[in-house]
């Protein structure tokens, strides 16, 4: 049987969450389906470590070196059947340069798991808006297929007149997440996973959390937030733990209720709800803001609640805190939903079809 040779132009390596979840975690399964993927990351893990590890200046300078490396890879050309691009080849280069340099990366599929285009078209800089505002639309337009993580991103691709658009949600490797039985604990744990960049969403519902946890009825476990956040949540029993890929599943398994508050905005609508899927994979009931794809992932009253306003947040959390049976039931429904729709196993065949078909276009 013929095998498909694909070059993946990812932005990062293993340390970049998007790269890991949107492509790297699929590779071994794709191989079983006749698709061999060669990974060409723009930025190596060392770059990300420098960026987040307190040496952003170094990272900035080394960026140009990485651009140069990608250019030489592209000029060399790998003799692949298909290129698989994460978002764009060269951030902040205009489309004409990108398409000129990327001539060997054809045909290509391009993947989006966030509203990357808003980095340009909603940029505060009028120069960026002017030069790059439509760049991603052009990238989408010329793709053999646009892979979008949710309907919001897919709609943008449709508007950009992409030939083919497929929605593939961001999924978890369901094997990595254990469903723990959460028998009626004295003090249920409300959990949140994220990063310093997203912790302000959690602080938005600080008052609600304070009321829900009042009198020690519940406590809070925050994974990946800055330790200082605890001070801003005074009055709540808060535990903050750092994030790591190896421990995240175990940390989530310690929670009883997963939350994902969001503000409603264009960026937020482009998100893929990955943390909700992680919670659900551990059989947690969830309470989330009904923004973008969140409202698709959560079936209100079935595997969790959609909470539009503070009042809804408080009612939903209180109900779950007081009701261990409901938590277990909703958690189970969530886990089943993950297995059916948001698991690696459920999406591998579709991704494989997308890649095989794109090559033929």
């Amino acid at each position, binding site marked *: 049987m013929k095998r498909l040779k694909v070059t993946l132009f990812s932005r990062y390596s293993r340390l970049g969450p998007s790269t890991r979840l949107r492509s790297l975690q699929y590779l071994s399964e794709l191989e079983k389906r006749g698709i061999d993927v060669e990974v060409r990351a723009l930025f190596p893990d060392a770059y990300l470590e420098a960026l987040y590890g307190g040496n952003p200046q170094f990272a900035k300078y080394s960026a140009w070196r990485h651009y140069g490396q990608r250019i030489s890879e592209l000029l060399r050309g790998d003799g692949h059947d298909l290129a698989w691009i994460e978002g764009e080849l060269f951030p902040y280069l205009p489309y004409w340069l990108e398409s000129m340099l990327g001539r060997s990366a054809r045909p290509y599929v391009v993947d989006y798991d966030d509203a990357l285009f808003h980095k340009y078209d909603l940029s505060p800089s009028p120069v960026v808006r002017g030069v790059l505002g439509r760049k991603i639309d052009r990238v989408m337009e010329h793709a053999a*297929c646009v892979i979008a993580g949710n*309907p*919001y991103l897919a*709609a943008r691709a*449709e*508007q950009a*007149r992409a030939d*083919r658009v*497929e929605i593939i949600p961001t999924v978890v490797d369901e094997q990595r997440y254990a469903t723990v039985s959460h028998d009626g604990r004295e003090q249920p744990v409300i959990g949140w996973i994220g990063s310093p960049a997203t912790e302000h969403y959690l602080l938005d519902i600080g008052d609600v959390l304070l009321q829900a946890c009042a009198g020690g009825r519940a406590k809070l476990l925050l994974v990946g937030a800055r330790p200082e956040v605890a001070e801003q949540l005074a009055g709540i029993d808060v535990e903050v733990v750092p994030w790591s890929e190896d421990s995240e599943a175990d940390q989530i398994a310690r929670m009883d209720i997963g939350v994902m508050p969001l503000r409603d905005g264009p960026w937020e*609508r482009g998100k893929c709800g990955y943390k909700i899927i992680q919670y659900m994979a551990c059989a947690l009931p969830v309470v989330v803001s*009904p*923004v*973008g794809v*969140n*409202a*698709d992932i959560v*079936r*209100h*009253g079935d595997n969790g*609640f*959609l909470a*539009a306003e503070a009042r*809804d947040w408080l009612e939903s959390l209180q109900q779950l805190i007081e009701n261990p049976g409901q938590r277990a039931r909703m958690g189970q429904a969530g886990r089943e939903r993950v297995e*059916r*729709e948001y698991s690696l196993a*459920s999406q591998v*065949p*579709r991704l494989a*079809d*997308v890649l*095989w*078909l794109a090559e033929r276009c």
Partner: protein
Amino acid sequence: MCGIAGFWRLGGAPRESLERQVRAMSARLLHRGPDDGGQWCDDNTGMALAQRRLSILDLSPAGHQPMHSACGRYVAVFNGEIYNHLELRGRLTAEGKAPEWRGHSDTETLMACFTAWGVPKTLQASIGMFAIALWDRQQRTLSLARDRLGEKPLYYGWQGDTLLFGSELKALAAHDAFRADIDRDALALFLRHNCIPAPHSIYRGIHKLRPGHMLQIVGAAPRIARPVPYWEYNDAVHAGLANPFVGSDAEATDALEAQLGASVQSQMVADVPLGAFLSGGVDSSAIVALMQKHSHRAVKTFTIGFGEGGYDEAVHAKAVAKHLGTEHTELYVRPEDALSVIPRLPSIYCEPFADSSQIPTFLVSQMARQHVTVALSGDAGDELFGGYNRYLSARKVWARMQRLPPFARQAAAGALRAVPPATWDRWFARASRVLPRRLHFATPGDKAQKLADVLTLSSGEAFFHQLTSQWSDPASIVIGATEPVTLLTDSHAWPETDGLEHWMMAMDAQAYMTDDILVKVDRAAMANSLETRVPLLDPRVVELAWRMPLHLKIRHGQGKWLLRQVLYRHVPKQLIERPKMGFGIPLDSWLRGPLRDWAEALLDEGRLRREGFLRPEPIRRVWNEHLSGKRNWQHQLWNVLMFQAWLDAGMSDHSRGNSYEERSLSPARVDL
């Protein structure tokens, strides 16, 4: 005419499981085809097809489905009628490609055409209304296709490893793999349009195949097949406008009468009793007149009338019937009859559907079915020949308003909005004695608000979008929704026309007509096992209509001029001429009266909160304003109520088992 259903379980499945599931699916379509049923399964590929049959042509077993082609390569289930199938048989014979015919059904003709010509060419050659699922055993390819204008329905979608398809959603819902996830974005579209436009459905992952499209799913990469058009309405628009009819008014009338007559005649072929709906309006009267012209016997015609004043068309229909000499049956329905239909609506339509004329359409179908199996209807006259009031008002209101510079319009809108509706009402009430009669509005405050909305619009297209919207910002009502782009908001998909009126007509034919009117008629009739046919939608009539210049459609401030000329050759003008009336029920007063308790229970704030789909505040505000009588929100409320009633009937929750069973009008009984 029938119902079809089926699924494709990738990787195959035990025969017993395929048969059980497909039988369950087709059992839900019994009403569409009570006369016969059949199924076909292939455990190797996991393909299962089923059909319920309402026998119209070839009542013999030779018409049984699923049907296999003579060569054995194809097996298909088919819903609909191919009106030119004898002509197709002739072409096959001429090409030496005709098999030995087993019977005289159109399905058999189609199978031979597929064998001889392949799928796209067969679809392009077929004139009729249809939905079809065709399995190519050799290539392991499934083709789904739907007629050009969307007369017959076809839903499809992947649920995990299984592709489900069928004539109605209730069939898909009977499959174990079906997940009833409500699509909030589609719900937003519903609140705008009263129906859910194709390709969306109320369920995530389930689509309506768009009219004129086919979907070919190849075994090698099944999940990412996309529908492609085999015929496009915009092409007919462009071709017609580029090649306008040249001739006198009389010659144009002759041409339309000949083409429409031929179409009516071809659609009167049936081996069972046939009749027509007759409202006494232009469209249905024209169809009936041409039927009578081509028939030796008296045509059977049907009308329903409402006792309540202002909504009674039955007297006009009776006069037309008498003049044409038809065998006319009329039924006067009482409000109780109409109200008794409401609890059945969720199961009849399977998804929220809120064109309130669904109720009289159901009642007239129910009555007609007692006498005939097939009824012709006059639908599509408004879209093809310019009948809707909005085409006239566009010219009057929009053109006039464009003369005002934008800033003046903004200022006027601001002024209108600055005064609360209640104050407008008070002012008009005081001034009514000195105002001329034409300025005596029932709800002036309401009208002032609407005028203000229109004044701030930027284009004729936006004006049309506003006119055809119920809720103007539905995404703000539905929790977690983003309203998808549709034909009306996607300027790339618009046809190029010679003016706003033609543009609106082209839009209505592709949106309102296919998503609302034709859905309404198909489901209401099929729920009563009645087949409906729409002669005006013969593609040859459609193409001719688009060759007719606008002045042959809208003239002297009146729509459908040309169709009227055809009609006036058979029925005197004075029997027809009167203000256009919808096929409506007095919803506004019913919501304040007999339906009030029912509505109140469905719109309860706690309930809305618990369900988590709609924001309670705006809905409660609109409901209270309507009850106060100050503003008329009947259409907005009716679509919210239809969604709520649909939820209440358990349509969203297949795990409850008995979902599609009819339930009593809960939670509050309707009291008259």
